[in-house]
């Protein structure tokens, strides 16, 4: 059970108020018309799914309804940091290029 800090409400709230939306920092294609099938498939479906540090998008859907990013360890489930959309994480694994 998570106790999550919402950077918009500036408060810790229970997991039940939030929804997770998967991998963060997936850039939308700049020129969608130019994409190959492979590039579209990768954008839509293929994910890092790391065992370890994961940057992911959450929404405070039963609160302020705003989106934000969380860096979390997917093995211990420990939340390392919370940061707003548009910001970059400060906690990154060596292998990680966001």
């Amino acid at each position: 059970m998570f106790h999550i800090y919402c950077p918009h409400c500036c408060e810790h709230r229970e997991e039940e108020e939030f929804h997770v939306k998967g991998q963060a920092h997936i850039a939308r294609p700049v020129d969608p018309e130019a994409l190959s099938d492979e590039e579209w498939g990768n954008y839509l479906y293929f994910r890092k799914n790391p065992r370890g540090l994961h940057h992911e998008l959450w929404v405070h859907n039963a609160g302020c309804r705003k989106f934000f990013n969380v860096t979390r360890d997917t093995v211990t489930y420990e939340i390392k940091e919370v940061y707003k959309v548009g910001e970059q994480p400060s906690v990154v694994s060596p292998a990680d290029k966001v």
Partner: protein
Amino acid sequence: MQHYSGFGLIKHSLSHHENWQRAWRNPTPKKQYDVIVIGGGGHGLATAYYLAKEFGVTNVAVVEKGYLGGGNTGRNTTIVRSNYLWDEAAHLYEHAMGLWEGLSQDLNYNVMFSQRGVLNLGHTLQDMRDIHRRVNANRLNGIDSEALDAKQVQEIVPHMDCSANTRYPVLGASWQPRAGVARHDAVAWGYARGADAHGVDIFQQTEVTDLIIEDGTCVGVRTNRYGDIRAERVGSVTAGNSSVIAAMGGFELPLESHPLQALVSEPVKPILDTVVMSNHVHGYISQSDKGDLVIGAGIDGYNGYGQRGSFPTIEHTLQAILELFPIFSRVRMNRQWGGIVDTCPDACPIISETPIKNLYFNCGWGTGGFKATPGSGHVFAASLAKGDMHPLAKPFSMFRFHTGALVDEHGAAGVAH
């Protein structure tokens, strides 16, 4: 291999059951195998078994980082059915069902496959329309499937509240009489024993830490215990850890690993002799031969490799179960656990070649792969033996996420396992 029989039981009782042969050997690895299977769950062991028994490839190693069946195979709620919507999936799961029906005899190991029937409940008009569509599709594929109304459901499960007074009244169900449950760890052990008897080497407590790749071709695995082991072909069957193995090969998969939780109650007298599942209120329940009620939840939404999930997920499931079975409100829960399921965007598996030559993946079974264990192992073995994907496996290539030929089974999979 020592043959198991009723007579054997009596014979061994004379020596106080102290002389049973080990079910499988504890070998040391050779330098080179024809095939290495990564992952000693049901699917990996079944793959090795059929490779050796049916396709004549006996120089096979199974490398398991923990103990056999310690992954999702030993953690699931053991529901077996084949009533999937689309032809591709229906054929694959029905292929498994056919093998289930003879599995205990084939393995000479009692997997306690019990065809007690599975009900998939409908609670809304749309549920019922989907059920009728799926039942009709099943019948066209030769799969036993019936659509029942609430009264017929009530006759099968007298203790369930099928009245109109509940928040989400039961309007009907799909019913597959040949579906049921099996003993999950017996499936892992039976396949392991059978594979071993055909010459397969099984290594437990041995983790694959890297893939050995030369010129874009996989030629073996690196392990934490035995160093490098080489092979002609490598098959990864690592469920929730598949993305980790893929990363060793330098590619991504269309998978997310999620916690999936289940729990069992204290044992009670026989009260539920079938399996009840509901996508709509999100819960499913059966009763084991020991008497405990076996209850499964939906996945936790976040990615997780920790084999545990959040309490609210269990709470929601129990709310749904109690809405259906108010009679269970005083039953105490005994144990609760989680597995790591590898969910795929179209709720169908990946049985596939990969960007790396001679490296194959069997994964993406997510919340519902136990039922497919024999069929999955069989078609993957055929593919590994020939280096050419089995016709039943072909639609489940990982590259369908590039071509767009997805097989959307969210309706048939749902919460459903």
